[in-house]
């Protein structure tokens, strides 16, 4: 167990390093973007005079390294700063939307993960059967359509008939039940998008093991195919499956801008896009770091789980 803690510690340190690299990359990238916050805020009606005034007010005239340093110093003290475009603290701006993003990600994961694993296991069990081929072809088809296209199709089928709403409107009084109902279509779209990947990986990971001597041993012990797959193959295929699930969970948190737009879902992705177009660097940085942390933490979680579920790593000689 100590080794796990040490691994977690090491990986968290590496994660911090990763986040630092990312913050430099993103800061550099936003610096390179044409135009600046002042120009974006004032829009086309900007004059040189008003631009200069606004730049002075926002402190945009400081050299870039100094601004980065100020930002970093704030972050190290736990203060992500203010959104300059909206003049609101980042935490206030990001807080609710982060909740929404996580809700949608978890909702979609709750649908997609069991579904994908079940399909993957069944496809491996009945490999090369009609079921296997059909689910594979369908899964491939689902991922080969752009996300917004899948979303529009679902709207055509499920929203226009009035079965589910095509847009999500969250107010203070929205209950979880209502949320589940309203967010069903976005969650379903995401499910279709990520299922294929997880299912194919599950199937491949299991089939990959079926040539192992211990699988043959299990069969020679007279175990049923279902038991062979579930009890003998799956526990050993967990590492790749956990990894692909983590990767897709990370995607569900970080990569759903398009879905947010189509279903008017107030998540972090839209906020991020807005912030980029406004050159609101503090917000871009904060959201990128949230996304990157999600990625880093999920990968870490995946590795920890892979370790815990692997007796070879858990029980040394």
């Amino acid at each position, binding site marked *: 167990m100590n080794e796990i803690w040490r691994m977690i510690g090491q990986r968290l340190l590496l994660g911090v390093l990763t986040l630092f690299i990312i913050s430099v990359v993103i800061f550099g990238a936003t610096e390179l973007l044409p135009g600046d916050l002042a120009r974006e805020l004032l829009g086309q009606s900007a004059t040189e005079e008003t631009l200069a005034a606004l730049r002075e007010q926002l402190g945009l005239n400081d050299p870039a390294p100094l601004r980065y340093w100020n930002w970093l110093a704030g972050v190290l003290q736990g203060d992500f700063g203010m959104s300059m475009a909206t003049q609101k603290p980042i935490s206030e701006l990001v807080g609710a939307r982060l909740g929404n993003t996580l809700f949608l990600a978890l909702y979609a994961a709750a649908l997609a993960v069991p579904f994908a694993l079940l399909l993957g296991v069944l496809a491996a069990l009945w490999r090369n059967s009609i079921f296997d081929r059909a689910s594979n072809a369908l899964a491939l088809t689902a991922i080969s359509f752009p996300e917004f296209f899948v979303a529009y199709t679902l709207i055509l089928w499920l929203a226009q008939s009035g079965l589910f709403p095509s847009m999500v409107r969250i107010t203070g009084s929205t209950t979880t039940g209502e949320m589940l109902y309203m967010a069903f279509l976005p969650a379903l779209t995401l499910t279709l998008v990520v299922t294929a990947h997880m299912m194919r990986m599950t199937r491949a990971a299991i089939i990959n093991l*079926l*040539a*192992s*001597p*211990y699988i*043959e*041993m*299990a*069969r*020679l*012990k*007279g*175990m*049923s195919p279902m*038991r062979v797959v579930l*009890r*003998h193959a799956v*526990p*050993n295929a967990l590492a790749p499956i956990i990894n692909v699930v983590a990767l897709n969970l990370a995607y569900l948190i970080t990569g759903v801008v398009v879905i947010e737009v189509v279903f008017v879902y107030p998540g972090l992705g839209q906020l991020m896009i807005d912030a980029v177009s406004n050159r609101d660097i503090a917000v871009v940085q904060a959201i990128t770091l949230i996304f990157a942390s999600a990625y880093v933490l999920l990968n870490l979680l995946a590795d920890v789980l892979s370790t815990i*579920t*692997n*007796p*070879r790593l858990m*029980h*040394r*000689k």
Partner: protein
Amino acid sequence: MENTRLLTIKGLKIEGRSGDAWHEIIKGVDLTLHKGEVLGLIGESGAGKSTLGLAAMGFARDGCRISGGTIDFDGIDLRTASETRRRGLRGKRIAYVAQSAAASFNPAHKLIDQYCEAPVVHGVMPRKTAEDDAVDLYRRMRLPNPDAIGFRYPHQVSGGQLQRAMTAMAMSCRPDLIIFDEPTTALDVTTQIEVMAAIRDIVRQFGTAAIYITHDLAVVAQMADRIKVLLRGDEVEEADTRSMLAAPREDYTRSLWAVRSFARAEHPSATGIPVASVGNVTAGYGAVDVLKNISFDIHAGRTVAVVGESGSGKSTTARVITGLLPPREGEVLFNGKALPASFKARSRDELRQCQMIYQMADTALNPKLRLRELIGRPAAMYLGLKGKALDSRIRDLLALIELEPDKYIDRLPSELSGGQKQRIGIARALAAEPQLIICDEVTSALDQIVQEGILKLLDRLQNEFNLAYMFITHDLATVKAIADEVVVMQHGAVVERGAKAEIFADPKEDYTRLLLSSVPEMDPDWLNRLLVARSGLTPND
């Protein structure tokens, strides 16, 4: 006898698929096994031993199918029985012990869970009883700490113990028949004896019938009541063990027997500066010393065999000489001159002088390169050969290793047999025109007849080019065949070294004696005698 008949196989045909075509692996074999009887199945790789063994369970591997004949197990026709019916027999009445217990135990579950699986699923006994039973059987199998060992995971248990645990697991439902598929092949000689003894005892205790598959005649001689010899899916002959050993009827059987007789003439004793000299080398990975102060010399035209069990530091010694592992202390001299410790610091010519042949030709040859490049590259690189000169050199080398140049020059390694691949490894080493060749277990993955061919080739080349060989092996028979000098290693240290004749005739050290005495002999009573002789000397496993 008729009523004690347990397994009757008649005219069994099994086909394997390559692509769309099916070809026969087993070409109509008969087999009869009585209750409590042990039948030895022997043959080289590709003889169909395992396939036949599995067929006795009504089982065909993926890509294989039983295409003819009958398999009658205690009145049940395994070919026509439903899959469910067959599943009901497997593990319960017919059990299987695989070659590599390390690979055949599921790494995700504890030993005892895997032990209990068959009895519980087949409804033979409840879990609790099964657990108690496991401990009992572990004890009978003379496993250390039988109460606790079941609660370990496979990777926490040594190979020999795992093999016994697997035999115990096969016994869990007290089957009528156990198929042992080369259960001791992967083990060191000293461990092999323990396992053989344990298996033999338990089979006798429960009166279980067994099919014992192996390629090692000496092993089968200890285990089986009867022996059946297979060659490429056909039966060669079958006879009672003692009569088979005494008087094999068929030429093929005799040729199997004869392999052991190869021995080359001893070379004149060493003179002059050794080609390579390992001087007081201590080396290791991290803080652990794998080699502890070892020294030995290799002279031109002579073969030094480095012998020891797995983990004794044989291969590490080779890594020190080649420069892959710079030693912590000591040095390697080449023709009296110190070599840079790391291969990266060595000159091209220094690299050329010392070549290596690997155990697994499959991993030692780049599977995507053709022989022309595999062999030609060292010649082009070290000797600067190009074009015609290079081509003719490659052809010469192929001819040297007895492969027809025109036929083989553009082949891929996958288009060669195991022995041919090993020959390519030899040709590649020769292409550099070295003084020293390190042979790391070069024959241990090969069948005995093929082994002999390789050894003869190596011997011829040594005479032709006055090569020095460092011959790493765990197989004392090979040592006997080819070595001039022997270095015995254990736990990273040299236990004993000297001329082959001296070592074999009069080993000075206990370990050397243990090693030598553990080599199975083709005498059915050898194991009994040895166990009696050793009863004072308990194994350290």
